[in-house]
């Protein structure tokens, strides 16, 4: 065999690029020429020895598109659930509120109380009537009489007490009461009022289910420094959406009450002219 061809054949044999026929030819030729054994071994040694290397950052190469998408889908689903609950809550609240919103002249408690304290005030003495935005309740106040009596006694002078209680929800006609006891008895019959409770001197609580409105009653004996007799915490009023009963000695004070305490759109306060 031509030495050049032999070399070429041996190199291709190391490269495993010879045909079966060429491989047989080479094997026969080497067998026939033992001096070529060493040469063949040298060529075989030129094959790079196996060397294993491990790429250390393989984890950085993997792709987990589906896993990421699954996570994303879960995130979207969770967000959708939260949004759904929020929306349902909002709709429920809106409908509930809408259902409770009184139709003019139908649902509402109107209380007009006039307590003419002086000539100056007699002119502008007012009572505040708030619209009732609560659902009618079958409950009857248990301790209403006692509480109202206390409040009425405290806030409304016994003399010349004149109040008009009107509950359109129960088709109550206008009722005029002349003293504190009568006022409390009328309140006692208002079905839309749940429970009246008051601490002895300064506070009234309107309890509605588990919610409560804190009414801070402030009574000033000094007629020259008349202040709003009742104030209602904004939190309570907004949360409860219940009848707010407030009385003021003057229209100005009534406005102050409204401005400072009844700034929610759910509560509407009407000012009525004092009746003497």
């Amino acid at each position, binding site marked *: 065999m031509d030495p050049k061809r032999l070399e070429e054949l041996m190199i291709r044999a190391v*490269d495993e690029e010879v045909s079966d026929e060429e491989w047989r030819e080479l094997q026969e030729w080497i067998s026939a020429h033992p001096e070529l054994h060493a040469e063949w071994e040298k060529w075989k040694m030129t094959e790079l020895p196996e060397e294993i290397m491990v790429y250390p950052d393989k984890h950085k190469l993997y792709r987990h598109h589906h896993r990421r998408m699954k996570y994303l889908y879960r995130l979207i689903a969770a967000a959708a659930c939260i949004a759904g609950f929020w929306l349902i809550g909002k709709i429920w609240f809106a409908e509930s509120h809408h259902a409770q919103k009184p139709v003019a002249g139908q649902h509402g408690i109107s209380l007009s109380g006039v307590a003419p304290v002086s000539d100056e005030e007699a002119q502008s003495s007012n009572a505040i009537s708030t619209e009732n935005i609560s659902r009618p309740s079958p409950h009857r106040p248990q301790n209403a009489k006692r509480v109202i009596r206390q409040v009425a006694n405290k806030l409304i002078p016994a003399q010349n007490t004149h109040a008009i209680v009107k509950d359109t929800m129960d088709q109550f006609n206008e009722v005029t009461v002349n003293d504190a006891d009568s006022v409390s008895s009328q309140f006692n019959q208002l079905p839309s009022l749940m429970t009246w409770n008051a601490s002895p001197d300064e506070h009234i609580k309107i309890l509605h289910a588990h919610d409560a409105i804190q009414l801070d009653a402030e009574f000033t004996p000094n007629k020259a420094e008349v202040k709003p007799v009742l104030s209602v915490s904004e939190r309570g009023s907004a949360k409860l959406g219940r009848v707010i009963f407030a009385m003021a000695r003057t229209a100005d004070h009534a406005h102050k009450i409204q401005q400072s305490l009844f700034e929610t759109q759910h509560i509407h306060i009407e000012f009525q002219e004092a009746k003497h």
Partner: protein
Amino acid sequence: MTEKEYNACVDLYADGLYRFLVKNLKQEETARDLVQVSFERLWQNHRKVTFEKAKSYLFTVAYHAMIDHLRVSKFRNHVSLHPEAFVQSPQADWEVKFIIEKALNEMDQVQKMLIMLKDYEGYRYEEIAEITGLSLVQVKVYLHRARKALKQVLEKYFVS
């Protein structure tokens, strides 16, 4: 190629690609970067590249990235052979490995790459030509020269 197939490619070819690059560049950091670049490119084109062609694709990208890198850095690793290290005959595999390693470092860069593609990855001449962009004849010639160079070094060291 699906994502699963791509991840299978990582399992199958990342180590080989890394070896190919490390042995050529002698820079582990650069080799890691180029492996990442190669797989990044594969993922970008995973819709076009089939699983069967993925290995060639990876080595093609890595090969050209390495050539570019070498051109930029004008990297040339010269490791001189020391005659005093001569041995009479190979005593162990590690000796052969050591000598071949040194011989490889003295070799022309293209020859070195081709012989690695041939011996480590088992590519055929045609495939190497496809990966490197060389002609089939060029591949054969380069590999022939590479084998001869290796044999000469081995003969020099292992005088039989």
